[in-house]
């Protein structure tokens, strides 16, 4: 696959100022007198006006500022006609986040109770620069990038989603891992009062939700720590305020609402592997040749679909990111290490 890394000087159609904004330039300049440059372009009208129909969130000022300074369209699909961005309502209304219930509409219904401000992240383990960071300070040193990734769920459906965030590699470099660090372990918030799914006595999941990556996977340029999507902050149900996005792995690897990132020596046992080791492994690389024991992974339903257009497409090895990631797995038996 071809990944287009845009030069800062590149201009795209999306960079063209929408007419409505152009026409209102005097009003805009008037507003600039009183406001900082980053704040004047409030809401979801950015360098690209694509998100004008996306509801505005409730981001704190620092996050709005980070978003306005985003490098837009840093990574885009090589075939945008095939990989069309899913409507915001679908991406934010139909997903798995078991902390808020087992049904795919539960997260959108129940995640309103999650308090994402203030938020802090612990970086610990085999690092020289660990500590607890306010999310604002954690995000500050890196510029936001917009990356449009395919997201392939292990349940054989997929969506294309435009994320906003920072490369995980930059965060790890700043933490300055020791020579013992071999893996990265991530942990989601545990708070049954805010997360009704954690109150269910029939849940098979042993909270907190845990995920892990090999250090080289974590350092791969594709691996993203997202704090926004669709030109705004993350909705709670999509893992606000901080989530992982690993586009060549099944969606469950992309852990949500992260409170802890630990550099560790031993391979972490991730939640789904603990729950059903014969169905979910540590790697969880998208692989059409290795079926889930209960269903085939050869194809996927690209959402949104409709009744008589199931939109079933062939699943690609590493979800189509083989050029960027395949060499990390040279010599590894992907059937045994699913």
């Amino acid at each position, binding site marked *: 696959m071809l990944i287009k890394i845009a030069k800062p000087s590149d201009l795209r159609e999306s960079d063209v100022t929408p007419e409505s904004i152009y026409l209102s330039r005097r009003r805009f300049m008037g507003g600039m007198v009183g406001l900082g440059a980053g704040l004047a372009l409030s809401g979801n009208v950015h360098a690209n006006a694509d998100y004008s129909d996306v509801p505005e969130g409730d981001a704190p000022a620092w996050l709005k500022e980070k978003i306005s300074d985003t490098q837009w369209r840093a990574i885009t699909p090589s075939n945008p006609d095939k990989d069309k961005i*899913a*409507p915001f309502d*679908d991406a934010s*209304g*139909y997903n798995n986040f*078991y902390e808020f*219930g*087992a049904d*795919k*509409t539960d997260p959108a219904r129940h995640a309103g109770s999650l308090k994402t401000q203030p938020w802090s992240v612990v970086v610990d383990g085999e690092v020289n620069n660990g500590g607890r960071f306010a999310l604002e300070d954690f995000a500050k040193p890196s510029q936001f990038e917009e990356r449009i990734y395919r997201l392939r769920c292990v*349940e054989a*459906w997929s*969506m294309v989603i435009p994320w906003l965030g920072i490369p995980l590699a930059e965060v790890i470099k700043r933490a300055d891992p020791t020579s013992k660090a071999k893996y990265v372990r991530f942990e989601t918030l545990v708070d049954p009062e805010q997360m009704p*799914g954690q109150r*269910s*006595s*029939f*849940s*098979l*999941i042993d909270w907190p939700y845990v995920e892990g990556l090999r250090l080289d996977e974590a350092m791969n340029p594709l691996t993203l720590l997202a704090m926004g999507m669709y030109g705004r902050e993350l909705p709670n149900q999509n893992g606000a305020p901080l989530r992982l996005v690993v586009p060549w792995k099944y969606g469950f690897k992309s852990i949500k609402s992260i409170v802890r990132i630990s550099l560790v020596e031993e391979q972490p046992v991730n939640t789904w592997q603990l*729950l059903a080791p014969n169905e979910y492994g540590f790697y969880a690389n998208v692989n059409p040749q290795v*079926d889930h024991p*209960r*269903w*085939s992974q050869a194809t996927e*339903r690209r*959402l*949104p*679909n*409709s*009744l*008589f257009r*199931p939109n*079933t497409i062939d699943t690609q090895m590493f979800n189509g990111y083989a050029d960027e990631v395949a060499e990390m797995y040279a010599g590894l038996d992907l059937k045994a290490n699913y």
Partner: protein
Amino acid sequence: MAALNLWLLWRLGVFFAALAPLLFWSWQVANNAAGPEPGNYLLLNIGLGGLWMLLLTLSLTPLTKLTRWKGFALIRRQLGLWTLAYATLHLLCYVLFILGLNWALLGSELVKRPYIIVGMLALIGLAVLGATSNRWSMKRLGKRWKPLHKLSYLILGLVLLHFFWVVRADLQEWAMYAAIAALIMATRLPPIARTLPKLRYRLSRR
């Protein structure tokens, strides 16, 4: 004559009540209110609806024993056939909207996936019961009809197993249905089955 019409009305009422969920879900799909994957929405809702129908059908016998109301027995065949209809539509949704009419894939899934096999067995069972639910079959089968139709309890077990194998992370909903099923099955155990009419007598004397 008036009484006859009342029973007909009751049966018609049950007919439309059983049809209503299907209409409602279709309406939701037609209005784009069923989410980004309407086929899956229909599949899951109709599947669960079929389990409801089966549980309702099987609760009619204990309810009759408890109340001696004739109305329950009158709708037993109808609800049984609704169960078959829901189950058939459930399979149809799977083949049409999930597999996209890929028959080869259906063949391989039928061989490989235990939950599909179990679901298919349950559907075949329901089809046999549906085909033998008419008067002619009852006469032909005679004494064998009743034991044959007790298969419905085995089918209920298969359906719950089918459901169990689809669950990924939370058993709450499944446990609720399993508990209702266990309650219904318990009422057919001879000691409990014998006490149900007595219970009715005691209730009516109060």
